[in-house]
């Protein structure tokens, strides 16, 4: 649409006048390109986020005549009741993020530096889980780690583990499940950052008598830090909001804030309280993301998404 305008402008009028008009119209081109997608995001992304704040200040009940907007700030006191779940979500998510970084870094380092012509194939293998539904993967972990599943059954049979030993419904199962599911999100930004590092810098360090470890410590690691931070953000934020792993692999003692929000919305139909919790989670994550974007820019994190 906007591009056509430009063509039209170029075809009409004297060369000079058309040139000036072209300049003005050209400035409008990006807005023309932005407007369809921008309008969509305004309606189906920004508006709902705003409306959730509105919902969180309503009072009433679904069965007692519906909800009305009453500036009901009391809904936010709900957070004091679910403080354990909120703290647990953040704690789990931090453990997950560090575990995933620790697991993914050596692998992505090796692929980026020594993968050679297998780089693309190896990267595809890391992304392989994306081709199987998230729910199926988690359900299969539930099966694999089951009390009488293939792994534990064998270990109990040969007497390595006591009969009552279990993995499911423990914090370990939930943390391990989330780590598994978000590992590709950690690996991708790390890989993108490591891949970009100029190999000759490492060689230079070695020529200057750095050991392999020193060359890594002083050259590769600092240069990969933007990727580490992007990986941190792209893992920590979604992991904090996850509830599927806690629902499938966890038990009553491992419920996260996502489970509470989900139940309040879909089972209890207590929309204002659910929205209040959601707003709290959203604000926390947006603040984190903003601080990140302020300090490090949005480039690195979105580049990783593009690499997928």
């Amino acid at each position, binding site marked *: 649409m906007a591009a056509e305008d430009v063509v039209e402008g170029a*075809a009409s009028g004297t060369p000079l006048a058309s040139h000036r008009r072209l300049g003005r119209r050209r400035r409008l081109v990006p807005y023309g*390109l932005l407007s369809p997608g921008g309008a969509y*995001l305004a309606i189906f992304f920004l*508006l709902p986020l705003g*409306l959730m704040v509105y919902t969180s200040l309503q009072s009433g009940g679904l069965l007692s005549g519906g909800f009305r907007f009453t500036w009901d700030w009391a809904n936010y006191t709900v957070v004091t009741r679910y403080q354990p779940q909120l703290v647990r979500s953040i704690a789990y998510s931090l453990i997950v993020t560090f575990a995933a970084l620790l697991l993914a870094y050596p692998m992505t380092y*090796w692929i980026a530096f020594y993968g050679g012509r297998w780089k693309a194939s190896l990267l595809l293998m890391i992304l392989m889980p994306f081709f199987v539904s998230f729910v199926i993967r988690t359900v299969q972990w539930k099966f694999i780690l089951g009390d009488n599943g293939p792994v534990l*059954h064998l270990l109990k049979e040969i007497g390595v583990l006591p009969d009552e030993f279990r993995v499911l419904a423990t914090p370990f199962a939930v943390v391990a499940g989330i780590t598994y599911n978000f590992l590709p999100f950690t690996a991708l930004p790390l890989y993108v950052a490591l891949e970009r590092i100029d190999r000759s810098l490492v060689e230079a360090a070695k020529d200057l008598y750095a050991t392999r470890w020193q060359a890594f410590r002083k050259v590769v690691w600092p240069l990969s830090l933007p990727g580490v931070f992007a990986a941190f953000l792209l893992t920590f934020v979604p992991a904090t909001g996850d509830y599927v792993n806690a629902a499938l692999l966890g038990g009553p003692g491992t419920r996260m804030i996502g489970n509470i929000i989900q139940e309040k919305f879909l089972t209890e139909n207590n929309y204002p309280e659910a*929205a209040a919790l959601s707003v709290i989670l959203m604000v926390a994550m947006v603040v984190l993301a903003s601080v990140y974007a302020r300090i490090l820019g949005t480039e690195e994190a979105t580049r990783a998404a593009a690499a997928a």
Partner: protein
Amino acid sequence: MSAVATEVREEIHELPPVNPRGRRWTRFILPVYTVLMIAYLASPIFVMILYGFNDIPGIRPTQTPRFYGFTLSWWRNVFNIQGLPEAVKNSLLIAPISATVSTILGTFFGLAIGRYRFRGMSAVDFVIFLAIAVPEIVLGSSLLSMFIQSGTSLGFRTILLSHIGFSIAFVAVTVRARVQGLDRSLEEAAQDLFATPLVAFVKVTLPMITPAILAGFLLAFVLSLDDFVITNFVAGQTNTFPLWVYGAQRIGIPPQVNVVGTMLFGAGLIAALANVIVHRRRA
């Protein structure tokens, strides 16, 4: 820094390229570790494929650790189970529509933020960044809030609208990454040869960003097909494949789920490989 690096690189060819430290067994640690990690990442996929062939007895069998023997009957009767065909059909209808619409909207968006500098650009950048970084549960619950407030009935339509919404940002950044890496002088050369800006764009730029558009489409397709959290909020009574699996697993995994999962996995792998090949040919 870089000047030093290039100088050193020139010298390197005169030195013997032997690194005695790399000759020990320790050099196998990282490759072995990588292979083990890939095996770990693949393990639930392997279990899924394997147990799609398990010959479990019973009327409504579910996955058990015991492997009774090899059968193709779940492959032959894959839709012989209530609810699964409708769920898969919905998923396979929503994914291509969502991917097509979000690819069109996201491509324009990506072009705008990749090619131009304009007022309000940092705000637009931040919205895109936010759309990628916001937890799914927040987006899902807020979409539900909006649909309830506006009295929209939940179902196929609301799933589709939501999927398009969360895919646009991913397509936009995929296209942007490619557009930013383009050599603008090629398009300018075309314009110097009297191509109008539109013709120059269609003949020069568009072919160069086609791989990114395709990749964005694939990404949007997979995101839609795979989504559980947001869909669960806005689906109402409508089922998609992930929602159906989530409901069914309460009493155990029917083997047909593994078969459908394996089919989608195979299709996804083929599409990804095709994309890699297209990339290679374009490069």
